[in-house]
């Protein structure tokens, strides 16, 4: 059976279809929660951020349509920003992630785990093609919960430079990810 697209489910959510929201939640719970845990270093904070994201989706705060790119990317942006706000409110320093990274227990299905592994390999491979500086930008922006202002401050580089570096890093990430996805294995030495 063909899976209903995220965009279509989102349309239904706008029509207050609770089952559609639950379906979207099920699709992205683990992915977003894992990401938020890594970012906040705190399971409770990650849950709170995830809740805010789905409350916003349900209430139609910042509506989505396909002209804004993929639905999942829109969710990731909302998740990141919800977590950044919560971290800021708590003035909570990010903790070393190894302390909380309680790796998946046995309750996920084989397909689910396989899909995660495939996606994970692809993105890891794509990231390896970024320069160290670019990897750092992505890490600080997406996994440390730093705003670009904070990155500018911490790295001692002008704000404008930070923005263009993050943009460049993400642009290169996009290109390398596309090549990984389309071409299977990417030659590690090839310059993009």
């Amino acid at each position, binding site marked *: 059976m063909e899976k209903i697209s995220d965009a279509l489910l989102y349309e239904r959510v706008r029509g207050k279809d*609770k089952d559609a*929201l*639950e379906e979207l939640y*099920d699709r992205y*719970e*683990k*992915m977003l*929660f*894992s*990401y938020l*845990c*890594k970012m906040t270093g705190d*399971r*409770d904070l990650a*849950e*709170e951020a*995830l*809740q805010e994201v*789905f*409350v916003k989706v*349900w*209430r139609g705060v910042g509506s989505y349509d396909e002209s*804004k*790119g*993929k639905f*999942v*990317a*829109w*969710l*990731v*942006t909302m*998740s990141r*920003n919800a977590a*950044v706000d919560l971290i800021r409110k708590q003035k909570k320093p990010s903790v070393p992630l190894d302390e*909380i*990274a*309680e*790796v*998946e*227990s046995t*309750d*996920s299905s084989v397909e689910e*785990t396989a899909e995660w592994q495939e996606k*994970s390999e*692809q*993105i*890891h491979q*794509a990231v390896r093609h970024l320069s160290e500086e670019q990897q750092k930008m*992505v890490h600080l*922006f*997406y*996994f440390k919960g730093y*705003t*670009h202002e904070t990155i500018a401050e911490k790295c001692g580089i002008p704000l404008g430079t930070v*923005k263009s570096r*993050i943009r460049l890093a*993400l*642009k290169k990430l*996009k290109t390398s990810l*596309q090549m990984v996805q389309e071409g299977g294995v990417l030659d590690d030495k090839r310059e993009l």
Partner: protein
Amino acid sequence: MTNVNCDQLIDYLNGALNEQEQKQFEAHLAECPECREIVDATGELPYLADPVAPNPGMKARILDAVFDEEGQPAPLAEERPTRNKPAPPATMAKRGFRTSKWTPLVAAALLVSLLGNAYAFYELSDQPDAPAAPEVAFETVDLQASEAFEGTGTAALVHEEGALNLLVQANQLEPTSGEQVYQVWLLKDGQPIPTGAFTPSQENEGAVFFSLNEDTEGWDTIAVTLEPNRGNTAPQGEVVLSAAIDPEA
């Protein structure tokens, strides 16, 4: 291609644009495949994290908050899961929960209706040629009041095709004060999950209806506690009513 709008991409991702800028950038996004592809790539970044199992009961808490708080402008700070509490069993994580609150009268009617359905099924199944019907089992129990508690209550449990419908109603309840609620729990081996809360009516009656979509647990006890506030994931207050139930039902 880079233009002024493309430069706003990072501000957009950072949620740093004002409403008008945001609209303008979204219009740009619709026109600029490169910016859109960059945004799309960010959707894969979470897979850099190690997979983490959801918190026990998280889905129920989040969906309850999403649907229950509808229309309330207040942000979610008070919904924050309380820290340092013993976590309920991990098997709860993937279940779908729905609660709804009913007035005692509606609840009573519903109870009759649930029992009626189950009864009709048993009547049917007495016939030798009755077609195979979905598996339905029901159980009603009188809840026993703890010492010094004046109230009484009953619980009806209807198991149907793997789902559990639970209806609890109670009478002669002591009024609650402040944030207090009567909270219903199902327990297995002493591990509770919250299954709905209520506050008594002016007639000191209360009821709650709760559905568990996929029930495989084999609960052995039902209990009602008087909690200091709504939303606890483990009991903090005293048990006021309780009964053993048949895990095989």
